[in-house]
């Protein structure tokens, strides 16, 4: 309706109105320009430079040996077994962490959606792990929880052992025995609250009428969750998965701190760090960085699309 009337008025007074709207458009754009230019200078230009560098063979400790090698660095990315493993690990970590934490987040969100005494307090405490600095969270996991000598987990095992009169309880070396699980567990601990927040927002935006109608129609709790709540939650779950993926693909702290990239846990960000700082291979590191960015852009595009459907639905 409004679009039609706008078109109509535009058609009536075309010449002057066009100039007015152009000026108006610029008066809206102009204040944005400094920020836009700043963004382009700070993010896009360096990225172009990185693209260029990723086609060079360039070790910073050997000045004078720099040369153009075209796509050689990208070829190495897929042929070098360590880098390929890093690519693979990144996928495993991202998929496992996102799926587990969305699942746990959904359960916790469903529980927190109910009214009970002290709900606000519980909600705040549930969010806490997400507020911890990532490197600090990783240190807590490495030293306070998983350390075989003085960690909490083995402390609990010792305590349980003592209850049963066992003076030499089993003391597993958690990180060495299950390195990938250790990394995933620490990330799930940190990311579940994030998923829970998004999903809780979704649950609280759900209108109560369909649920009441389902109850009147005799639907069981499971049925009304499966056929009423879950379809409503779909977009929120998608959003949680996509946003979570973008962040977890980039995660560096957990691997760096828990295992220093050992025991087959090195992921792409760690490989970039290692290639750049330990290897001083600027070209190779740039190529790996570009791949991470491309991966994130692919996920990010999907994420933006989901966000925009969400916004459309809000205004509908």
């Amino acid at each position, binding site marked *: 309706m409004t679009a039609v009337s706008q078109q109509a008025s535009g058609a009536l007074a075309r010449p002057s109105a066009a100039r007015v709207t152009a000026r108006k458009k610029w008066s809206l754009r102009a204040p944005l320009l400094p920020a836009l230019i700043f963004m382009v200078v700070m*993010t896009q230009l360096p990225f172009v430079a990185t693209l260029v560098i990723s086609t060079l063979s*360039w070790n910073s400790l050997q000045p004078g040996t720099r040369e153009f090698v075209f796509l050689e660095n990208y070829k190495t990315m897929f042929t070098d077994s360590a880098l390929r493993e890093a690519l693979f690990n990144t996928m495993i970590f991202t998929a496992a962490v996102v799926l587990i934490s969305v699942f746990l987040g959904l359960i916790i969100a469903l529980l927190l959606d109910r009214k009970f005494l002290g709900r606000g307090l519980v909600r705040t405490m549930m969010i806490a792990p997400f507020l911890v600095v990532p490197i600090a969270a990783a240190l807590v996991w490495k030293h306070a929880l998983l350390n075989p000598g003085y960690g909490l987990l083995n402390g609990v095992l010792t305590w349980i052992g003592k209850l049963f009169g066992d003076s030499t309880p089993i*003391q597993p070396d958690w990180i060495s025995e299950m390195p990938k699980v250790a990394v995933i567990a620490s990330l799930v601990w940190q990311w579940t609250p994030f998923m829970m927040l998004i999903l809780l927002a979704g649950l609280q935006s759900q209108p109560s009428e369909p649920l009441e109608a389902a109850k009147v129609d005799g639907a069981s709790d499971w049925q009304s969750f499966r056929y009423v709540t879950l379809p409503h939650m779909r977009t929120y779950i998608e959003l949680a998965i996509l946003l979570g993926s973008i962040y977890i693909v980039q995660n560096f702290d957990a691997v760096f701190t828990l*295992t*220093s990239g050992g025991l087959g846990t090195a992921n792409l960000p760690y490989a970039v760090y290692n290639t750049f700082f330990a290897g001083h*291979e600027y070209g190779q590191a*740039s190529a790996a960085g570009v791949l*991470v960015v491309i991966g994130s852009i692919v996920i990010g595009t999907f994420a933006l699309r989901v966000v925009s459907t969400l916004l459309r639905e809000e205004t509908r």
Partner: protein
Amino acid sequence: MRWTRLIACASIVALSGCGAGGGGGGEEGGKTVRVLMVNNPQMIDLQKLTAANFTKETGIKVAFKVLPENDVRDTIAQDVANEAGQYDVISISNFEVPIYSKNGWLQSLSDYASKDSKFDEDDILEPMRESLKGDDGKTYGVPFYGESSMLMYRKDVFKQEGLKMPERPTWDEVADLAAKVDGAEPGMKGICLRGLPGWGEVFAPLTTVVNTFGGTWFTKDWQAQVDSPEFKEATNFYVDLVRKHGQSGAPQSGFTECLNNMSQGKVAMWYDATSAAGSLENRSQSKVAGKVGYAYAPVKKTKNSGWLYTWAWGIEKASKNPDDAWKFVAWASSKEYQKLVGEKLGWAKAPDGTRQSLYDNPEYQKAAASFYKIIQGSITSADPKNPGVQPRPTLGIQFVDIPEFTKLGTDVSQFVSSAIAGKTTVDEALRKGQEMAEKVAEKYQ
């Protein structure tokens, strides 16, 4: 050329999200020397003593930036390679000096050192002096403290078990002793050996074991030898020993974790840097002070196997203030500074391993009675040019002095660490290591 470097740095910082860290950029000119150094205890002492002594005497202010070892290495590499000159003085080791000086990133200190009579260059131990020279024979680094490696063991536990540690043990004897002292006290393991990935972590002690077992990373003409029988035998020995009688959490233990294990009485032996002695004998941090005995680095086919490492001061070529920087460097590595630490903080904390005069000082001898002879003997007998049974292509005892070694060592160490965790076999780890080493060697053949 410079602009590309700057953009490279900026873009990679933007991509990976880890900044190189700014120095005291606002304090250029004037009389401020900017120092970037590693956070080892000796450096922290220096930081504490500088304002009240050096600055008071000379009027030169010193701005310190202190970082952990891995980070300091990375930050320094960035700063010198980009010729950014954010710092005047950097703490570098005998690994970096030959490489950096070859690239023209460091000021030659030969003239400063020979003209400064108070500095007394000839007092510095010869292997230290030699290891801080560039290919051109000029001096590019001044040692702050130096270390070799040695075996530390619990005298009280050995006595209680009726065991005796030879002054120059062999690795076979050490393995035997580790089995015997394992479990001597509740929760006590036989030996602590590093297992944390990193060329400067697990591969520092492991490469000395490889050397004395007759192995090497590369032959004189750059043939990779990582899957040779000797390299394999040494690595199998090391991995078996730490798996059977080593500390818990071995694949995550570096120097710091082992220092904790030893000073908390959780292990009976420890093979590591000689610089650990100061911390082990410090009663405020160590439960085992006074109970530790010291022996030379264990051997098999060579006469000695201790490594040689030094944290030294270098002055960046891009420094705008080299004269004042030299004054600081000369003071920090002087006899007077060692005396200052001795009197203010105790002689056991004096930065050691660099000057003959310290070992001749009766006060130091008294404070370090249990270990100073072993350290002095280890350092003076270390030979970075010829550390094993065969001729080597370049310098280095616990490392190979080429820029590629940091990455090569770190990558291979991840497989070795996995082998220590039992996730892979030594054969498989070294097979992959050999492939990587061959690729590196190609560039030099």
